[in-house]
């Protein structure tokens, strides 16, 4: 019978396992290249192609009784380089066809006796109608037009009641209206999800499919060692990806970085660990590599893209979907990353999001270790 060995020169099982995993990653050149270039490609693509900055707002004017004030405001609007007036008519009948044909983005309806109300000092109500088929762009455009109206009112020194208030987060923290600033934190979340959840799910289910996982489970390695050994190299890769994405954002788009870089890197590691635990869990629950890949796409990529506030503002989702977003890790990470990068806030403002991610990590990691032990039941 062999006696238990001891001694400091004993090779650690975990170390051996991590080295093996690094070999897997480095040997698969194609996948590695894709993973390394991915953050760069995504930042550049999203930054250039998918920005929804306003380049031009086309306005239809409904002015039943033109007077000095309406004409002055109309001139103010058409004088703005980003606004153009595409139609002026006395009745509101034009609005519907303009929107239908896509000829106008916003309709501005003046009340009868606009100048009179202004000079009397009573509220002059304007009606702003926007084409909300694309609600994000629409609210941005409305905010933009509203800002021009407000500046006109301020110049006239009129105590004007706002026609339509569109509170816009991005107006406050993204004054240049550059959507790339908002996208970059979300892209980091996306890249991290891809590298962590998707890649671990694939790599672990490959071991399952090839039968090597069985060999590992029969060995003295403990479930947590298999999991930690499996995810550590990907954590490293994810870390590199965050740095690439930040560099690309800064060099190509001058995205500001107002907060603590260390805090963001730390939060990224936390978020990456949540993704890794999720990937392990998916691999444990699926029977094949293909199922694991699809599972990871559906369970992590879709919600992290669509339900995280990256593309659609959470406030614009129906209530039941909003409830689901509470369980989407990226939702919280995006708040953290935007907070740090764009607002420059620190832990005192973001501790709640961090706590939520830590809770998610503990729950998912426990479930992942359990799902391994369940195989032995």
């Amino acid at each position, binding site marked *: *019978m*062999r006696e238990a*060995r001891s*001694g400091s*020169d*004993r*090779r*650690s*099982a975990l*170390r*051996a*396992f991590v*080295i*093996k995993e690094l*070999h*897997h990653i480095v*040997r*698969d050149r194609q996948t590695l290249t894709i993973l390394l270039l991915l953050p760069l490609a995504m930042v550049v693509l999203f930054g250039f192609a998918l920005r929804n900055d306003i380049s031009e707002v086309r306005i239809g004017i409904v002015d039943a009784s033109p007077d000095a004030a309406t004409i002055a405001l109309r001139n103010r609007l058409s004088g703005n380089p980003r606004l153009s007036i595409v139609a002026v008519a006395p009745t509101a009948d034009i609005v519907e066809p303009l929107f239908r044909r896509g000829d106008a983005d916003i309709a501005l309806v003046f009340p009868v006796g606009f100048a009179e109300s202004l000079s009397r000092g009573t509220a002059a109500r304007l009606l702003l109608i926007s084409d909300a088929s694309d609600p994000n762009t629409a609210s941005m455009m409305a905010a933009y037009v509203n800002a021009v109206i407000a500046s006109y009112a301020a110049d006239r020194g009129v105590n004007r009641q706002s026609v339509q208030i569109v509170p816009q987060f991005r107006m406050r923290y993204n004054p240049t209206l550059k959507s790339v600033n908002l996208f970059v934190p979300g892209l980091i979340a996306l890249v991290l999800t891809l590298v962590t959840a998707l890649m671990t799910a694939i790599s672990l289910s490959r071991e399952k499919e*090839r*039968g*090597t996982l*069985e*060999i*590992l*489970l*029969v*060995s*003295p*390695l403990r479930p947590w060692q298999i999991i930690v050994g499996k995810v550590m190299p990907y954590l490293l890769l994810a870390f590199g990806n965050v740095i690439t994405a930040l560099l690309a954002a800064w060099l190509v788009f001058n995205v500001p970085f107002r907060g603590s870089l260390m805090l963001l890197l730390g939060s990224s590691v936390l978020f990456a660990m949540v993704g890794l635990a999720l990937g392990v869990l998916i691999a444990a629950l699926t029977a094949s590599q293909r199922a694991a890949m699809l599972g990871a796409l559906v369970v992590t990529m879709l919600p992290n893209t669509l339900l995280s506030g990256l593309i659609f503002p959470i406030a614009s989702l129906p209530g039941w979907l909003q409830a689901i977003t509470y369980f989407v890790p990226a939702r919280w990470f995006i708040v953290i990353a935007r907070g740090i990068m764009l607002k420059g806030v620190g832990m005192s403002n973001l501790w709640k999001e961090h706590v939520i991610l830590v809770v998610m990590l503990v729950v998912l990691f426990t479930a992942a270790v359990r799902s391994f032990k369940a*195989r*032995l*039941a």
Partner: protein
Amino acid sequence: MTAAIDAHELTRRFGNFTAVDAITFEVQAGEVFGFLGANGAGKTTAIKMLIGLLAPTSGTARVAEFDVTTDAESVRSHIGYMSQRFSLYDDLTVRENITLYGGIYGLTDAEIRDRGDGLIGRLHLEDAADARVQSLPLGWKQKLAFSVALLHRPAVVFLDEPTGGVDPITRRQFWDMIYDAAEDGTTILVTTHYLDEAEYCDRISIMVDGRIAAMGTPSEVKGRFGAASLDEVFLELVRPQSVSAVQHA
């Protein structure tokens, strides 16, 4: 001398289906024990219980003197296992695979180097030591997998259809390796579908529908059934069962 494998009334049920039905057997240290049976007879389920991958529904089993239910950790560090699927990493080199398994089983760096060199020398793999395993012919891979399963000098080795798809000459060499390991005192439990291989075993058991239908040395088993070969015994045992199973289905 206690047995290297000691299974007592070992049972595993999946719902209403009894995959392994109260099997009792012993394997002595240094013995080569053939574990035979048709596909679905319960061999793999039984092995999974013995190596700690599956908990028994009832009954007990001790492997290398450790209880598989209460002391699975100890069992794991004292056994080797080679599954019917290829058990090495294709994209790692021969030496990297050796280092990995040595590390997992807690060998020192010096032990890994010495035993690795010895293993590579015995298999005449010197020129291929730094080649990826995927470039080796299947027969070499299987021999390498077996040697790696023995790297930590386990007391008991489980081989699940180790020679599937391998040419006759390599199979012969493989069995020479099994005998060498047994001579060193390693206990070997091997499953196979090649009944000529079963003749090489010290003792065999034939499982039918979750039970052990016959057990003993190959000649004992043949004698009991008055058969000239294990082939005949196997068909005699397995055929009526499978016909009735079809009729009941």
